[in-house]
């Protein structure tokens, strides 16, 4: 899987402040790929995982802030998350699944049956 971040932010100056790229872990097993993205502040309802052609886009919108007081100190980014990855053609896009637990989005990308290693019985 090509994991290069499509550098949309550098090309599109207008959109630069709007998104932040989440930190991700990506690894490959025999069955497929697993992508874990850190999106603290994003719940199930704010998530969008889109497959288009050979690309997967993950977008996370933060739940609205519920605090009413005056900010004394802020260092958390308030921008929404977005990142684009290119998919290995071996991935079976029909079987991609995603879940979110405590701000970690886990996307499971299984390989299609035809590329999985298999043993051929010798007669």
């Amino acid at each position, binding site marked *: 899987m090509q994991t290069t971040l499509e*550098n949309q932010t550098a090309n599109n100056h207008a959109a630069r402040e709007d998104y932040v790229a989440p930190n991700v872990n990506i690894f490959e097993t025999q069955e497929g790929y697993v992508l*874990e993205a850190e*999106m603290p502040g994003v719940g199930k309802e704010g998530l969008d995982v889109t497959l288009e052609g050979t690309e997967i886009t993950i977008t996370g919108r933060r739940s609205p802030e519920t*605090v009413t007081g005056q900010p004394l100190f*802020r260092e*958390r980014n308030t921008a929404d998350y977005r990142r684009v990855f290119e998919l290995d053609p071996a991935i079976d896009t029909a079987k991609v699944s995603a879940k979110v637990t*405590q*701000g*970690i989005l886990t996307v499971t990308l299984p390989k299609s049956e035809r590329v999985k290693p298999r043993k051929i019985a010798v007669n």
Partner: protein
Amino acid sequence: MNILRWQTPGLTAWPSFDGLSTLRNEIDRLFQAPLGELAPTSHLLRGSGPALDIFEDKDSFVVKAELPGMKKEDINVSLHDGSLSISGERKNETKSEGTEVYRAERFFGRFQRTVNLPSQVAADKISAEYKNGVLTVTLAKAEEAKPKQIDVQVN
């Protein structure tokens, strides 16, 4: 108010390779942002401790920390001498044996951050909630620290 950021010994705040690829963006941002905003929000200058927001209203302080992917029993919140400490260990729950790793940008390991609160808080009125990977600690101000209206009697 002092805010101390703890860093893992031997682990520098140097970004991952992906961080380098956004170096240009970061430099652009450094030139654009007003000076006051730089240090706390800059990705390149951030250590491994969780990012914090602190809010104040007349009765309480609210501290929000980004701690994605933890179990609530692995988070410790303590108050000592008016400073609030948030510590814990971020554990990698995913088995990575027999896998090929393409990106490893997430931080795992111990962390701690300490915040000296600007006024006294009531030690028995602290509550913490962990939701969507964000820890929210609410600390009620001590009675003596709350602003008081005193009526002036004129005879």
